[in-house]
């Protein structure tokens, strides 16, 4: 009970601090919407893969995954490594707050932001770009988003181990993410026979995009997701989790 109370209190104060920095909050939520507007005008009435499906049905789920990955992986990795180097994490370790509670709350905050971003992205799509959201897709989409959030949060924590100092954080985080983002077809569809697309299937981003796209595909009667994609996400989740538990550090790296 005591632990639950600490988690709730900590969650409240972290949320409060987050929303009081409106510039940071604005850009987190504005960026995916901006991408959506840009790609929607670039693509106009283009169609997916020479089919009858409008391209919006592909890149709007793509931008949704981009939002989830920004909120979970990018945000968490940069926040945690900056806090580590500034000694904020060290200070928390000097109080009776259990380390797991701090980590759970920080991750929960990222997941909440990710869910809000999913709602905003799909909401703008439905409201302004005739995005077709089949009602049967709701439950499977929640499952995909929760699994994706968990995986990319775990990866965000894991990548802090590779970050030597706060200045290097954005370079390391984006250096890993951006190339994979492009070869995974986040903003435009890839031919599934291309070598890059095949390589991308071993990493977690493309399976996350394809799962989201398939779940929301209005041409399908049911939300069938390829189990291999979900296994991929689950394996990355476990690997990142184990790596994080073994290697994550709370104290600043020694400056020598």
């Amino acid at each position: 009970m005591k632990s639950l109370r600490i988690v709730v209190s900590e969650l409240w104060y972290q949320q409060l601090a987050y929303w009081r920095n409106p510039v940071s909050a604005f850009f987190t939520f504005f960026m995916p919407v901006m991408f959506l507007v840009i790609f929607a005008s670039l693509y106009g009435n283009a169609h997916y893969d020479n089919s009858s499906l409008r391209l919006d049905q592909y890149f709007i789920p793509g931008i949704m995954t981009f939002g989830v990955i920004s909120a979970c992986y990018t945000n968490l990795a940069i926040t945690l490594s900056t806090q580590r180097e500034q000694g904020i994490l060290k200070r928390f370790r000097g109080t009776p707050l259990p380390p797991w509670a701090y980590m759970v709350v920080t991750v929960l905050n990222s997941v909440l932001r990710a869910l809000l971003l999913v709602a905003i992205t799909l909401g703008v799509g439905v409201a302004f770009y005739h995005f077709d959201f089949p009602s049967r897709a709701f439950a499977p989409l929640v499952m995909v988003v929760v699994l994706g959030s968990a995986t990319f949060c775990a990866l965000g924590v894991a990548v802090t181990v590779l970050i030597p100092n706060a200045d290097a954080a954005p370079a390391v985080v984006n250096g890993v993410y951006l190339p994979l983002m492009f070869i995974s077809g986040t903003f435009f569809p890839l031919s599934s026979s291309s070598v890059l697309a095949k390589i991308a299937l071993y990493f977690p981003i493309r399976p996350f995009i394809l799962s989201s796209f398939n779940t929301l595909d209005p041409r399908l009667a049911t939300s069938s997701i390829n189990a291999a994609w979900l296994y991929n996400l689950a394996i990355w989740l476990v690997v990142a989790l184990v790596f994080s538990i073994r290697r994550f550090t709370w104290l600043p790296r020694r400056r020598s």
Partner: protein
Amino acid sequence: MELAVSVRGLRKDFATVQAVKGVDLDVNSGEVLALLGPNGAGKTTIVEILEGYQTASGGDVSVLGLDPRHDRRRMLERVGIVLQETAVEQFLTVREVLRRRGAYYPHPRDADTVIDLVGLSDKAGARVRTLSGGLQRRLDLGLALIGDPELLFLDEPTTGFDPNALREAWEIVRHLIGEGRSVLLTTHYMDEAQVLADRVAVISKGVIVATGTPDSIGGRDTGTATIRFVLPEQASDVSELGLSSSHLTVSPVDGRRMVEVETGSPTSLLHSLTSWAMAHGIELEGLEVARPSLEDVYLSLTAEDTE
């Protein structure tokens, strides 16, 4: 007496250096102990081992009767830590930051009481980012106190303060001491140790080289004293005064002859000196008796470190 902190034969080896080489140290309950030493002497390493951030390479440590590594959580419920650097959530207010921290402790103090204690009453509703560095440091002290700790670790709490902020911080720390908490303070300021500590332990190159009260450490109270005066014109030579000391120097200063005598028995030496002066009806100009300052003692104890 019950010990707040007990350290026996503590060693800490890093890859290339031995930072702590067999240290024994006690903080009695209700006592303020200052660990005084130059940068790199091992102060922070010792304190971080006691706080449970680092593991010892050898020896025994106990904090409030607990092992700082194995009983860390229980120890942290009863200990307040002020680290060298301040890092507080910038977008919360002073009161919010204290309430948030208070939620971690079994018996927290009231946030507003602590705010008064550290003199932040008019800033209680202000966001941390609007506070000056000195005020943030006070908040830092408040955060260390919110859990009503029995023992406080203050690691160089005033490094980088201007003289005004320094006096204010000492005032607050003295107030806390009045509440009967035990304190382990590290510092490289002599005057800070002098003002705040009941006892001082001087550390140099990973070894404690002296312990004692600020007034007696290093034989300050019993060692050599220095007596200075201007040799009166009536005396043609210092030998006329009949002072029995081998450490006597006469040096010309502004056309006058300045006498400096080092002695282990200043009372009898002063007696002969003043008897001579009284007998000749002379007022001795510039007469002073000086004990070595804490700084003199500290510099001689740590001389090898600063060469």
